[in-house]
């Protein structure tokens, strides 16, 4: 039995010892055969990795000398690159602005709505010292052609001590014409013209007195009568709105 054991051991040792070189030889053989198939012209198989096997071609770095800036000055290309970047930024800013603007313009009032929101009044029909009440956007608007005394009274009032201090020059564009919304700032009644303790307007609901400039002087109202936006496009015409 010992003789058999040593024989098997020796066999196993030689087997393992021969195995590795055999594998190596096998791989070497296969790689060799592949390189042959690449080279041989008669083979029907064309390797997509042609030329990869030779070390000389893979390590060679292609020349970029053609693309190199020959003048040696880099500021020109740099300015060009920044110019292109900036131009793209400007164009995309334009696009973003146009997109946002389209949405916002969509929300604003259209021209026919704006046209209906204005009222044009002929001022020549209003004599001095008279009130006219017109309807504008569903609300009454007082237009008063003030006399010289009324203008003087309105301007000379000590407005700093009033409840809603406001000089007369802030409330009128032309001193002759006082234009304001005829809605009491207390609870929204319509005041009565040429009435009250101050020669202006008087609200019958809760007794607010407004002076000749429409400022609150007495009573519960907290604010002066509101002045709408208006304009005098030509002499003798007023456009409210």
């Amino acid at each position, binding site marked *: 039995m010992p003789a058999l054991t040593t024989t098997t051991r020796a066999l196993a040792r030689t087997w393992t010892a021969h195995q590795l070189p055999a594998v190596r030889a096998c791989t070497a053989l296969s790689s060799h055969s592949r390189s042959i198939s690449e080279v041989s012209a008669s083979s029907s198989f064309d390797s997509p990795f042609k030329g990869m096997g030779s070390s000389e071609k893979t390590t060679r770095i292609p020349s970029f000398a053609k693309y190199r800036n020959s003048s040696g000055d880099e500021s*020109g290309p740099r300015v060009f690159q920044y110019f292109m970047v*900036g131009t793209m930024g*400007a164009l995309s800013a334009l696009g973003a602005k146009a997109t946002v603007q389209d949405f916002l313009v969509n929300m604003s009032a259209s021209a026919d709505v704006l046209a209906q929101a204005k009222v044009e009044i002929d001022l020549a029909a209003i004599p001095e010292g008279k009130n006219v009440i017109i309807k504008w956007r569903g609300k009454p608007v007082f237009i008063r052609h003030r006399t010289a005394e009324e203008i003087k009274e309105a301007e000379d009032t000590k407005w700093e001590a009033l409840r809603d201090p406001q000089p007369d020059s802030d409330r009128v564009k032309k001193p002759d014409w006082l234009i304001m919304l005829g809605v009491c700032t207390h609870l929204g009644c319509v005041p009565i013209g040429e009435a009250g303790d101050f020669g202006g307007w008087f609200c019958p609901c809760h007794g607010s007195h407004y002076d000749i400039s429409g400022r609150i002087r007495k009573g519960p109202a907290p604010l002066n009568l509101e002045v709408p936006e208006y304009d005098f496009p030509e002499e003798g015409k007023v456009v409210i709105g």
Partner: protein
Amino acid sequence: MAGLSSSLYNLFFRKNTVMLGTVFASAFAIQMAFDSGSEKIWDGINKGRQWKDIKHRYVQAAEEE
């Protein structure tokens, strides 16, 4: 050429804030140029067919009446 380009670089691109301002200012200028240019092209194509081209005939007639 080198002096011009480097001075351009120093003027507009060296500081990021300045470059951003330049970009937005030029966006504004590009928009104005684009708008007026396209308007001009449109007017050139539709010459004599728009209200502002033929307005003088009708407005004068209305004043004479």
